[in-house]
């Protein structure tokens, strides 16, 4: 057929580099985020090394002096959130799976999609380039609070700050264009019969993530622009000396920043729900309830931002309403988690690797979510703000979402992406090591934080009151290094299985959703001459009176089944 012939004619450049095929763009995002994760991981190692062994040169790097330490924590955060979390958890699955799961041939705007990837790429390049400019990279923390970030007079960093702000702008534009594309695609290009109540959770939650990003980022783009003006053109929007207001940035940043944490959480939840349905052979409990809870969580996420600013000089009268909204927002998430538990109940659970990763995600995320409720209460936060408790909290939310959730998706869909299965033993080993060392790294930080240790300190040995935590910190660092090293199991598995893994058929898990009807890997245009016509919902597993325990969403395309 014509689409096939088209694919063979593509040159290397149009196929791998300037591709407009949604699957190739998805893979590009995956590759970029993997590279950036290696970079971010290396920085994590340097941070932990310096905290545990202050003033001892770090192997493979040298001494992490305080100025380098500040730059490294800043870039670690920025890279992990905008150049690992966003591409790995949002852009990669949105690109790869939204068209496949709704039965479309590609995105609504393929060229815009390509632009979105190259914008992220340019942002990553700018960020890395900031290591090589005079003054080095920006060092004011990933939240970029002025006046440190607004004038080189304070931090001694001019070009680094500008590059950082430009890189952020690239990431914002990229994710906005991406989000626009995902939304338009899902609304206008659904296959026949793919009604709103038949859309799989993965797609719903990727859209939730896109909407949340889309509506919250605008003000921060404005803030980013104003900060660039402050740095480059001498305005003083955020500089008190010129009549500016530094807190304005904090508002703009956290108005985006809090919704952003849900942007990085929703995809993991949606993909987790689909994985759960497949491996419990049961319909999702409370499909509509989950969706409406999500809607309310999105709405609430726009009115909680000041819980990051309780100690910023915010009017204390505002602390109470923001505490209340913050604690309220845990209700919809509690509902969703209970729906997930109810889905597990009486399921015929298959503990395969993706399912185990998903359960690992739930178990660890729960700790992060629950500690958030403590922090949301202004009276508790006054004590905990700025300590390692906060660091532990957000790593217990972000790491589970991005890595446990992201890995469960990669293990689950790898057969679809590359036509081969990942090695299960290595997958289990990867999970076991990651789970143990993740908890080993961040659990001690709760203890250290409650003990009062402040984050962003290069040399804790300088402060006598922190000497008591030295062993905790060394333990956390050893676990962190092991955690980073464990990821090589995954990289090895990828390389091995991509070339030598057992061939997977179209539908290795007997799953219902549409992507399992396409070839593995799906060809250019995804479907043959005939588009799927959807006749049933995504979760019709174990229907009474049917011979098989699954039921593909489209009946007009015959998917071959390979058991096991």
């Amino acid at each position, binding site marked *: 057929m014509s689409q096939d012939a088209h694919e063979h004619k593509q040159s290397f450049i149009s196929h791998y580099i300037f591709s407009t095929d949604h699957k190739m763009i998805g893979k590009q995002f995956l590759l970029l985020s993997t590279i950036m994760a290696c970079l971010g991981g290396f920085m994590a190692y340097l941070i932990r090394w310096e905290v545990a062994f202050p003033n001892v040169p770090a192997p493979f790097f040298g001494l992490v002096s305080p100025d380098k330490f500040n730059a490294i924590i800043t870039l670690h955060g920025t890279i992990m959130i905008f150049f690992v979390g966003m591409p790995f958890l949002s852009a990669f699955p949105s690109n790869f799976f939204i068209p496949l799961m709704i039965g479309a041939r590609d995105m609504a705007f393929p060229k815009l999609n390509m632009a979105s990837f190259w914008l992220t790429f340019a942002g990553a390049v700018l960020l890395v380039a900031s290591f090589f400019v005079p003054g080095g990279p920006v060092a004011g923390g990933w939240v970029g609070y002025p006046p440190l970030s607004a004038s080189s007079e304070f931090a001694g960093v001019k070009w680094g700050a500008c590059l950082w702000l430009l890189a952020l702008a690239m990431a914002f534009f990229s994710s906005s264009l991406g989000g626009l594309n995902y939304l338009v695609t899902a609304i*206008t290009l659904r296959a026949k019969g793919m009604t709103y109540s038949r859309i799989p959770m993965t797609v719903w939650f990727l859209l939730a993530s896109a909407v949340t990003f889309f509506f919250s980022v605008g003000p921060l783009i404005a803030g980013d622009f104003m900060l660039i*003006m402050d740095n480059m053109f001498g305005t003083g929007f955020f500089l008190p000396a010129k009549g500016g207001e530094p807190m304005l940035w904090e508002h703009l940043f956290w108005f985006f920043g809090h919704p952003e944490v849900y942007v990085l959480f929703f995809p993991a939840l949606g993909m987790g729900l689909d994985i759960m349905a497949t491996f419990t052979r049961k319909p999702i409990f409370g499909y509509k309830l989950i969706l409406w809870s999500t809607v309310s969580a999105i709405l609430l996420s726009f009115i909680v931002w000041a819980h990051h600013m309780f100690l910023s000089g915010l009017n204390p009268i505002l602390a109470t309403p923001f505490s209340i909204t913050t604690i309220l927002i845990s209700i919809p998430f509690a509902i969703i988690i209970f729906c997930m538990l109810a889905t597990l109940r009486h399921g015929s659970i298959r503990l395969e690797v993706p399912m185990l990763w998903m359960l690992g995600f739930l178990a660890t995320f729960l700790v992060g979510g629950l500690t958030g409720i403590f922090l949301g209460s202004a009276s508790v936060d006054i004590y905990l703000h700025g300590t390692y408790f906060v660091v532990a909290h957000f790593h217990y939310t972000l790491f589970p979402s991005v890595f446990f959730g992201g890995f469960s998706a990669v293990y689950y869909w790898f057969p679809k992406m590359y036509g081969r299965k990942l090695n299960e033993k290595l997958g289990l080993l990867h999970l076991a090591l990651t789970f143990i060392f993740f908890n080993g790294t961040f659990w001690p930080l709760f203890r250290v934080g409650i003990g009062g240790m402040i984050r962003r300190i290069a040399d804790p040995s300088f402060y006598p009151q922190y000497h008591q935590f030295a062993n905790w910190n060394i333990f956390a660092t050893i676990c962190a290094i092991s955690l980073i090293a464990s990821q090589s199991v995954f990289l090895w598995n990828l390389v091995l299985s991509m070339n030598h893994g057992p061939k997977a058929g179209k539908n290795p898990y007997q799953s219902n959703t549409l992507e399992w009807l396409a070839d593995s890997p799906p060809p250019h245009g995804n479907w043959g001459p005939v588009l799927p016509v959807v006749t049933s919902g995504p979760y019709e597993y174990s229907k009474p009176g049917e011979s098989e325990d699954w039921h593909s969403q489209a009946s007009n395309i015959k998917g071959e089944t390979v058991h096991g």
Partner: protein
Amino acid sequence: MDGPVSGSGPSAGPASDRRMEPARLGIILFIIAEIMFFSGLISSFVMFRFSPVPWPPPGQPRLPLEVTSANTLILLLSGLTFFLALKPLKASNSQLFKGLLTATAVLGFIFLAVQGAEWVRLLHFGLTVHASIFGGFFYCLVGIHAVHVTGGLIALLWVLNKAWKEKYSAQNTLGVELCRMYWFFVVGLWPILFFLVYLI
């Protein structure tokens, strides 16, 4: 590739369900993102505007109210001509359509030119971006709006070019409508900025 089972009804080709045009939805979403962006800018400005600090600060020039009022009318007029342009196109009155479209572009261009001339004057009077927050906000709000007008104008010239080549017809109006939605956004935003920056 393995053959999908065909013969299951009219499923070949794109879905025939009536759905929104992707490009139209795309523009709507784009405008929403723009609105969020401007709300960030505007609320930052309002925060300063209503602080106890005198505004405009002493020593900084007052803004050219009269010229800009007239200019506002010009921009609004361009919105009107674009509004009126669609009907003749749908009624296959190509001449009137092209005329109104051209008028829109000319009015938009006049608006930009007058804005530019005013800025040159203000710069001479010492209203620069770094002279005060006032200057910073003035050029940010008004300048970013001007960038948007320029963007709209480029799109408009593109549409105009196609219109003169008779590429549009009563059935094929999408390009014109998309450009028009964006132009309405740019035109509709201006009175708000004008009110906030110049009037109060």
